[in-house]
């Protein structure tokens, strides 16, 4: 159990060599690797933390933008709804107005059509009535009737009111040669003379009237000058009746 001092010294040296070699080949490389890995992990954690922070920031930003967008969308939707409601109201009003206008127009058109139809009907009726009347009067018209007519015309001429007389005088004075007497049949000379005398008396002049046959008068006599006319005939009655019916 002796201590071999050479062995002690050798072991001491061996140990110191081993310390140096293990420092070089074991502790340093291992500790460096561990430190490097720790640093790498720390860096990665920091990077991850930074990324998380950035992601959180982006998330917040996105959330904020989303909220803004939602708010804008809501605002726009509200505006659009209001505008749509306004537009709807306007369109409805316009449609109503258009419909009213159209209804009015249609009513007018219908009314007009009705009126036209009525008018046509009235015209046709009137025409038929007058045609029938004319035919009937033409059928019964004769020279004796014509004589009665001339008599009646003279009587009417004589019983003219003052203003009517004045109108006739004024018309005659402005166109002295244009007095024309129309009759449905050729008036006998006696009748023509009576009429001529009556006119001369009335106008207090001496003139010769022109006589003309006009079958459309049906029966009666018509005295006309430019601007004025005096007549007694069935046609005149019929025309007056026609005007009265048309006016209604």
């Amino acid at each position, binding site marked *: 159990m002796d201590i071999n001092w*050479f062995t002690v010294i050798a072991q001491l040296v061996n140990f110191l060599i081993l310390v140096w*070699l293990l420092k070089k080949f074991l502790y340093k490389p*291992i500790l460096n690797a561990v430190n490097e890995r720790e640093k790498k992990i720390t860096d990665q954690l920091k990077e991850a933390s930074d990324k998380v922070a950035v992601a959180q920031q982006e998330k917040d930003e996105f959330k904020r933008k989303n909220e803004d967008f939602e708010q804008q969308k809501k605002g726009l939707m509200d505006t659009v709804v209001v505008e749509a409601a306004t537009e709807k109201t306007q369109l409805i009003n316009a449609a109503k107005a258009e419909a009213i206008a159209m209804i009015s127009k249609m009513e007018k058109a219908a009314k007009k059509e009705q009126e036209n139809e009525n008018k046509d009907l009235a015209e046709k009726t009137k025409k038929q009535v007058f045609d029938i009347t004319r035919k009937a009067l033409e059928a019964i018209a004769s020279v004796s009737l014509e004589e009665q007519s001339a008599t009646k015309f003279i009587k009417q001429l004589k019983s003219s009111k003052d203003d009517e007389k004045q109108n006739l005088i004024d018309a005659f004075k402005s166109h002295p040669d244009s007095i024309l007497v129309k009759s449905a049949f050729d008036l006998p000379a006696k009748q023509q003379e009576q009429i001529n005398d009556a006119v001369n008396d009335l106008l207090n002049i001496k003139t010769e009237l022109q006589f003309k046959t006009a079958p459309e008068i049906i029966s009666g006599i018509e005295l006309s000058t430019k601007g004025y006319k005096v007549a007694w005939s069935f046609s005149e009655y019929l025309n007056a009746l026609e005007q009265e019916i048309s006016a209604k």
Partner: protein
Amino acid sequence: MELSPDQTIFWEYGFITINLTLVTTWGIMLLLIVSAWLVTRKLKTDIHISRWQCFLEMIVTGINEQIEEVGLSKPEEYIGFIGTLFLFIGVSNICIIFPGYTPPTASLSTTTALALAVFLAVPFYGISKSGVWGYLKSFLQPTWIMLPFNLIGEVSRTLALAVRLFGNIMSGGMIVAILLSISPFIFPVIMNMLGLLTGTVQAYIFSILATVYIAAAVRNAKEKSKTKVITT
């Protein structure tokens, strides 16, 4: 029966003797260095590492943590010395599982050498932290009367380190040898298993005591410098 591998001499020339202790030590040194080199030549700094790298990292970081727990704030300064103590003693003792192997730690010369290394390392680290005078003054603490006791304590603990390790390992080897001669089956295996545990514990005790001694020297130096700062 040979009590120490020192007695197995391979070559001798005057004072110089190449004995089994030295040869086994060289073998263990070679094993440690080659293993370390093989593993550390392909070190990875990624998350995924090899099993051997993981094993070595566990050992190195474990030693580092132990040193730090004892009270040395910068373990990387001491791991070279303390870690080598642990690994050398530990591997020397664990190799008893090989038949015919005699650990170098069963030699009083080796344990003395290691204890001497600790004996020298304590003032080395103490002086490096607080200077020669600062370290020497630590022997006068708490009063100058304690100087002889401190000196005796310094020497005796070195002696205790050497003898404790030698006694444990040598006795383990001897018990196995005795048991082999009495009952060659089963019992030597159980004793060898116990020897593995004892050997590892002894490695731990030796290195942790060395750490404590160094830490005490460094702490004394630190306390000194702190006191100096406060008084100034």
